[in-house]
């Protein structure tokens, strides 16, 4: 009986954000005739690409009980590196490959700093946030990084390619979390770091892997935005880390670790982009859009708190 109740509770926990998304979508469908078009749906998905791909990283890191405040700056650093390489005339394929390596290396460095020094992830990644931003400013200083080759712009153009890249990223992260030993252990480590260590899980090594993947997906997101906008500079990505963490939390991944999944993050990202697009269709200003997302974050975490209290009582 208790097991059934627990399973039902977990299922409901997963369904709540989806239910929220459906309700928000339906509200806009009812209130705005221009919202209920195929173009709008395609636009929402396209607008979700940058945030969605970026948020895949914090999903893994948060589930493992970590936190990464540096991904916005890491995103910027990769964007600037990509721009510099493109204006230097390096072939597009090589630029993409090097950018991905830079992202993964920065992520690995993040993880190594945290496990190597033992400082809290909040402090470690806060320091790296400043470091990556500074590096991006040095690399981007006095550089006009724009007007890139058409073959590079194709990565971010239209609907099909960016959405496909996002979908493949989500699929790979899903496979990693649910079908691999390292991914599966992410939940165990997030649930209890100490118990996992005593059970023989190489926690430190796995942490570095989680942060490396976080850096890698941030690099994918950065490459797409540079291709989409056809320019870059060292002001990119300011506040993006908080948007990505917000999307992850709204989807139902817990800040306390051990609970979450990429499917939930997809829903969280779609809630944010649907709110922004829908409120724009209703002529609501950007400031009110910010407030709405703030309210939804509080609601999502409040539900998480209720759920945890309930589980603790049971």
């Amino acid at each position, binding site marked *: 009986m208790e097991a059934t109740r627990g399973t039902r509770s977990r299922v409901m926990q997963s369904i709540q954000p989806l239910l929220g998304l459906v309700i928000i979508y339906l509200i806009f469908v009812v209130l705005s005739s221009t919202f209920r078009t195929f173009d709008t749906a395609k636009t929402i998905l396209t607008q979700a690409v940058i945030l969605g791909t970026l948020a895949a990283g914090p999903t893994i890191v948060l589930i493992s009980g970590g936190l990464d405040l540096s991904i916005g700056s890491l995103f910027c650093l990769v964007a600037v590196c990509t721009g510099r390489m493109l204006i230097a005339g390096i072939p597009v394929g090589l630029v993409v490959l090097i950018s991905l390596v830079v992202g993964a290396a920065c992520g690995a460095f993040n993880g190594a700093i945290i496990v190597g020094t033992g400082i809290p992830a909040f402090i470690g990644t806060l320091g790296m946030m400043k470091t990556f931003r500074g590096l991006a400013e040095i690399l981007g200083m006095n550089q006009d990084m*724009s007007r890139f080759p058409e073959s590079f712009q194709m990565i971010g153009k239209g609907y099909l390619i960016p959405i496909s890249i996002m979908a493949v990223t989500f699929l790979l992260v899903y496979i990693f979390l649910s079908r691999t030993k390292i991914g599966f252990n992410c939940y165990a480590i997030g649930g209890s770091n100490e118990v996992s260590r005593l059970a023989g899980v190489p926690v430190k090594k796995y942490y570095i892997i989680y942060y490396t993947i976080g850096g890698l997906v941030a690099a994918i997101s950065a490459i797409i935005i540079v291709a989409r906008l056809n*320019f870059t*500079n060292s002001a990119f990505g300011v506040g993006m880390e908080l948007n990505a963490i917000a999307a992850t939390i709204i989807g139902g991944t817990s800040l306390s670790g051990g609970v979450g999944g990429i499917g939930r993050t997809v829903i969280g990202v779609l809630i944010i982009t649907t709110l922004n697009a829908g409120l724009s269709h209703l002529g609501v200003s950007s400031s*009110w859009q910010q407030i709405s997302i703030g309210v939804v974050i509080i609601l999502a975490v409040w539900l998480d708190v209720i759920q945890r209290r309930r589980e603790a009582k049971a």
Partner: protein
Amino acid sequence: MRIHTRIVLVVLALLCVSGLLFAGAGKESGEAAEGKITIAYTGYPGGLTAFWAQMAQYMKEEAEAMGVELLDMSPTTADAAVQKDSVDNAINRGVDGIIIGAVDNRAFGESLDRAAEKGIPVVAVDTAIDHPHISALAQTDNLASARVLGQYIVDTTETGTVIILGGTLGHQTGDARRDGVKQVLEANGYKVVFRACNWDVPTALETATNELAANPGTVAVFGCWDPGALAGLAAVKQRGLMDKVKVYGFDGLPDALMSIKDGELTATIKQDNKEMARVTIRSLVSQINGQESVKKLLIDGFVIDKSNIDQHM
């Protein structure tokens, strides 16, 4: 708490949030009245610089005067990707026309292609956007005005090093202001040190502080936008160089004018953003109505200094 109670709670909470938001948005939340022209405006965030806060206000006033509905879809952060999204949302919403005051002029290619496909006219204000679908532009003649300021600096400052605190590199407006001043100064034997500050005041303050230390022969600081110039002024004050280094701005914003009145900022170029808003709205409405319209209006900026400050306060 029982599960079905929680579901009801979630639904109610979301409905309440939506209701509050729509109520809070007031008149903005309604869709366009039948038959009334609806224009979307997305400018540089007004919360970041008074120039753009004024611009949004002037746009609203002119739209009201013309009897058209104006949707202010400006982003709250200087994020080109978010502004591009707002243009896409305006296109999907089916507005009659769009005005862009670009965070960065290079970001809109694909969105403007879509606007062209849908037959939605798009005009630019303040910053030129290099795309064939941009059907009109109203801006200060940045290059010519910057040359005027360059000559003014030559006339009022002894020869030496001039630090230019710029916008974002590759941004049409910022580049034109840099080039105009730089050309005149270099032709007159000045050394120019240019640093891009991404239109960011803290960056301008930090850059000015560092460059003043690195260039002891500095005789002037020029900020390509007034808030940047005021950041430069703060750095000059901090280093105790007020009697040696003059500071110049560009925009003609209230804070800069007050500073000129107080004898701190030497001069600024006044941009007529009210005229820009007026011409932009009128041009777009004419196009929507199928009439001839102004395609390009370059407005001359002029120097405001201690001698004429009282006429402009």
